[in-house]
């Protein structure tokens, strides 16, 4: 037969084709596994990448506008239109990206905010995109660059305008219309809060309360309060975005004032953040979320302080220190609006990007010419704008997941408002500037705890059953017993979970003493039955041989269980004051959840028993018969043979059975979802619930936003599960393969 003939034979062609098809099909299995692995990695990868900043675009200012110095810059949400405000109080908008209507760099609009007789003293930008212009007369004007999007058919166009949320008239900060040295301003829909130091050395608070809502209507009523007299100078002044606190720094002494009282402005706390380091405060700002204060110092540190509950009341405390520069002071700190990121700037224009919760430096480099150069963070934090003498620069910031680092996931983190560093999982909240708490420790702990309690219950029962079924049971009985127990594996876990949550949990709660009584009663009953059988006369023993043991014990165990449940209320009444649950909570001081580790242990134990049983039974059953025969022939008892020969030989198989069981317990979802309270606590107590990785995914995945840090962390949780079970399964399979080789050589 020649090669040519072969290829032209249609039968051979079919044969080759079949070979290729089938091989492809076989390999696709491996491909699937690799695909799952790769895809999970692909989704997870971005959260561990650090930030990158790259120039995106640059536009020139109009020539006649180049003379006046730019004092503030900004950009719209989509980074399409940028603007600058110059020292004369003019705001100019420029197109930053080409689109159908406008070319990049096109000047769109210029508007004067200040009138000719007003002189700009200072400009402030708030986190909610307003710019506050303070004049030398002591008045302010608040402007909000607004971008109106309109649709004409399918065509979208965006036009900039300037909105005056407090009206176009100048507003005096001070009731007496004095000039102002320094001030801070924040506003929301209901009110604007100003704290200021007047030229005549009064520290004052002014609240502008909206008559309706500043979003629709600039009408307001002003309320003035005096905070303190005779303060000649302050270094820094800030009001928190929620308008409740004011922070003033003066000669390195920081005072925090409560601002939400209409009659009084009490001092909430006073501290010196640099007392230990002997440095001076060179910058102060508030982190988003209104609870953390950031200080820049002249030795290059950025310090994070917030209020912490301690034994002697709430106190401000230093939480973190970022070494932002080695040889320069930190003179400007720009916080992001929603997240806990901030940019720290040194006089020479070195910029560092940091995230407080994860305590990381995300980026560092020279971005600015000096610390006085106008700089602003884009509203979605995906870019920054800065202005040079004649141009506006836009830089892209790629910083999607600053809150996630390996250490933030696995180590204790000191979250805002917490008394100490802790492992917390709390992924969502109602507010926008909420500090997400992504510690995988509590849920990994929950996974371990659930698996451990399940194994504690399942391993003894499953191994005992496996030993007996494989070694002592007559073949006829084995033929029905084994499939029956294995049937349990086929039971949907949703049913086990439902029974555990709705039937077992209330039952255990009501008959708690019975559960503990069973631990003693069941073995005891077994021993008594066994001894009774041993003492039985020979002629009766013939009818009920020892090989019927499981059937003999079965009714005894049922009776023992019934006894335990009948005795339970009486035990409860006589020893535990009528209510064991109350006894545990009040007298022992242990928290008791109805859906607790005990319930999960039993329910998941049931799910795992068949897995362990089936594999362990196979391993023991396939121990070569001549080994046992040899041992028995040498005079060992059945039990001795079992322990010293059979179990020893089969031990790798038993090990791999337990590994498989553990793998199943770790990944089980529905049972833990339904039989625990799903609270992510770290507590080994048997009476408390837990939240596991798998249940966490099931609960939170449907509502997590695609591509967000939360979404990717849930993928990470799945990846952890995947790797975990991969290791266990591969190990188990490896051990089993070797055992099989060993048996065949015996």
């Amino acid at each position: 037969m020649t090669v040519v003939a072969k290829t032209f034979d249609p039968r051979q062609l079919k044969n080759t084709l079949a070979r290729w098809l089938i091989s492809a099909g076989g390999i696709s299995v491996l491909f699937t596994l690799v695909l799952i692995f790769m895809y999970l990695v692909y989704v997870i990868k971005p959260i561990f990448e650090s930030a990158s900043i790259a120039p995106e675009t640059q536009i020139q200012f109009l020539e006649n506008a180049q003379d006046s110095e730019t004092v503030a810059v900004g950009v719209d949400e989509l980074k399409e239109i940028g603007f600058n405000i110059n020292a004369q109080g003019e705001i100019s908008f420029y197109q930053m990206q080409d689109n159908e209507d406008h070319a990049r760099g096109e000047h769109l609009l210029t508007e004067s905010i200040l009138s000719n007789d007003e002189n700009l003293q200072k400009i402030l930008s708030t986190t909610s995109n307003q710019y506050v212009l303070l004049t030398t007369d002591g008045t302010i004007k608040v402007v909000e660059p607004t971008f109106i999007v309109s649709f004409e058919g399918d065509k979208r166009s965006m036009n900039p305008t300037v909105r005056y949320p407090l009206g176009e008239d100048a507003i005096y900060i001070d009731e007496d219309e004095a000039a102002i040295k320094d001030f801070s301003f924040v506003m929301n829909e209901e009110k604007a809060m100003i704290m200021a130091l007047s030229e005549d050395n009064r520290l004052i608070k002014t609240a502008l309360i909206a008559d309706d809502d500043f979003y629709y209507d600039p009408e307001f009523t002003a309320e003035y309060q005096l905070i303190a007299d005779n303060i000649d100078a302050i270094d820094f002044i800030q009001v928190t975005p929620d308008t409740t606190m004011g922070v003033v720094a003066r000669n390195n002494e920081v005072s925090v004032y409560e601002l939400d009282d209409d009659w009084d402005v009490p001092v909430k706390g006073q501290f010196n953040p640099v007392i230990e380091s002997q440095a001076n405060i060179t910058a102060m700002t508030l982190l988003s979320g209104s609870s953390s204060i950031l200080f820049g110092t002249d030795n290059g540190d950025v310090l994070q302080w917030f209020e912490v509950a301690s034994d002697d009341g709430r106190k401000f405390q230093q939480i973190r220190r970022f070494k932002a520069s080695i040889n320069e002071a930190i003179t400007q700190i720009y916080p992001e609006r929603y997240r806990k990121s901030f940019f720290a700037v040194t006089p020479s224009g070195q910029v560092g990007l940091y995230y407080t919760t994860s305590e990381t430096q995300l980026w560092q480099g020279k971005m600015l010419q000096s610390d006085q150069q106008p700089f602003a963070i884009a509203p979605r934090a995906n870019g920054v704008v800065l202005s040079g003498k004649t141009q506006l620069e836009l830089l892209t910031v790629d910083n999607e997941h600053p809150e996630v680092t390996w250490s933030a996931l696995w180590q204790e983190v000191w979250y805002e408002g917490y008394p100490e560093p802790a492992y917390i999982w709390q992924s969502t909240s109602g507010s926008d500037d909420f500090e997400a708490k992504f510690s995988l420790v509590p849920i990994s702990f929950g996974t371990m705890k659930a698996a451990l309690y399940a194994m504690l219950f399942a391993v003894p029962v499953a191994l005992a059953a496996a030993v007996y079924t494989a070694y002592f049971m007559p073949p006829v009985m084995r033929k029905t017993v084994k499939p029956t127990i294995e049937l349990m594996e086929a039971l949907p876990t949703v049913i086990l979970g439902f029974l555990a949550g709705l039937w077992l949990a209330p039952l255990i709660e009501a008959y708690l003493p019975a559960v503990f009584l069973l631990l003693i009663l069941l073995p005891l009953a077994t021993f008594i039955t066994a001894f009774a059988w041993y003492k039985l006369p020979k002629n009766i023993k013939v009818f009920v041989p020892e090989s019927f043991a499981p059937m003999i014990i079965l009714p005894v165990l049922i009776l023992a269980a019934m006894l335990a449940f009948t005795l339970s209320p009486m035990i409860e009444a006589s020893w535990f004051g009528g209510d064991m649950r109350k006894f545990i909570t009040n007298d022992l001081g242990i928290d008791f959840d109805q859906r607790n580790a005990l319930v999960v242990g039993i329910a998941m134990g049931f799910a795992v028993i068949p897995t362990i049983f089936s594999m362990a039974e196979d391993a023991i059953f396939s121990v070569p018969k001549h080994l046992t025969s040899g041992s028995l022939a040498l005079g060992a008892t059945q039990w001795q043979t079992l322990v010293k020969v059979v179990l020893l030989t089969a031990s790798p198989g038993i090990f791999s059975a337990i590994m498989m069981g553990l793998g199943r317990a770790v990944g089980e979802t529905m049972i833990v979802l339904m039989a625990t309270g799903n609270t992510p606590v770290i507590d080994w107590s048997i009476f408390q619930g837990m939240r596991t990785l798998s249940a966490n995914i099931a609960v939170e995945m449907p509502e997590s936003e695609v591509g967000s840090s939360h979404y990717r962390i849930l993928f990470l949780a799945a990846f952890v599960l995947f790797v975990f079970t991969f290791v266990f399964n591969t190990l188990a399979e490896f051990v089993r393969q070797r055992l099989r080789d060993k048996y065949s050589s015996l």
Partner: protein
Amino acid sequence: MKTWFKSGSPWVWLSAAGVSISLISVVGLLLLIASRGLSYFWPSQIHQFELQNVHGESSVVIGEIYEHERIPAKQLNNKNVDIGDAQTVDRYLVKTGNRELVSLDFRWVLEPMVQKQTQPENVVVIERRTNGNFYGFIEEVYMGGEKVEAATLDDFIERVSELQEDIEQLQGKDIGAINFELERIRLKERKAELDGKLTSQLKADFEQRRAELAQQYNKLEANLNQLRQEVQRDKIVVRAMDGQTVDINLEQVLQITFNNQMGFFAKLGQFFHQIGSFIGDDPREANTEGGVFPAIFGTVLMVLLMTVIVSPLGVVAAIYLHEYAGNNAFTKLLRIAVINLAGVPSIVYGVFGLGFFVYMVGGSLDQLFYPESLPSPTFGSPGVLWSAITLAILTLPVVIVSTEEGLARIPSSMRHGSLALGATKAETLWRIILPIASPAIMTGIILAIARAAGEVAPLMLVGVVKMAPTLPLDGNFPFLHLERKFMHLGFHIYDVGFQSPNVEAARPLVYATALLLVTIIVALNMTAVSIRNRLREKYRSLEN
């Protein structure tokens, strides 16, 4: 005693106890589900309790006894009852229904308070569309405002149920079809617009079609309104346990039974009738009442789709592993992959399915083929197709392992014989090996189906919902809607048992659903196991 311990006999017995515990738990579990599930269908006796508290106030409670338990007297915090110095107290959980009259439709009745317990003959159970069951006594029956004989009630109910069926047909099928058609026209128009082919001629066509449909719709709606008026014609006046009388429009009534008058056979008939409506009806009252038909339908459809995907893949992979793969490192790697596919937690498949199939593949399909309906996703959101594919990966190892076992049992003499007669390897496989291995393949597929039918966790991410407005298979073109979300028995259990507002009332239904699911799965498994066993016997005889 010492020799007894030395003999190891106690430990043997202890290990025997392990077997017993496992057996008790399996059988006990099945019995528990069976008894609770079946009792849901069995019409129970209606009890009337006359109660009196320590203050001498008396009241009447009518309902079904749900549970009976004995609790330590100390746990009882009830000042209204004098229990003397008894250690324990018996109490009954009674389902009193009448949800619109009393805030709780379940109530604990303490044994010491019961003065008299009777089972009145004429008490009725009224199964209603909303507000659950009503327990009470029928006082009067009205036809269109006129009082009539109570005996005509059965005919009235018959009439109402026929009318309701018509309404359902109109509302669900006919009007649903019009809405579906309207949506299709909208999408066609949008597509033409996107392609730049929307001419004024085409636009006019669409408008005309729309107008026609609107006309049809108006006609149907008029019909529907008429039927709705018809169905509200009759009403009954019933007296509840606290003596107040209530009007119940027959439109609300599904069934009226006199449970206490039923004999054994009447109850048996009612029992099967209840099972029938449980399987065939749609759910009511946020899934806590009525049937589970959409869930059964969804489960079956999803599993069938999955079978279509997994069977060829699994069989081919098994054939490769057993017939083609050499004994080398790559094959070992493949085997480890199979083991791991079986061991990876199901939720991980769910996460993978959601990310990869739904968002990545589905999202791309939408961009390519359904740009007209964007931004609302077609395949880019969880649905029955993605569920089937995800579960196909999940059950792939089940089919592979079972098929391979079947292949391994075929004596190599058969292969050699075939090859020696000049058949190619492919021919041997197709003509000899596969037919012989088919029972093993069947076993694998059945086991895969059983596994898939019970799996819930991944489905929660890739396509299952608590209430699907439409079935994935209906009379609207293209009939099989693979992108639709579906209901699933397992998820139904989770949802009704844990997410419903009235868990207590829904619990019996959950048991019934669990029983249904367990029955299906156990039956599938038993079939698979028996096929496998028969196969083993057959080859054992072949080998010798």
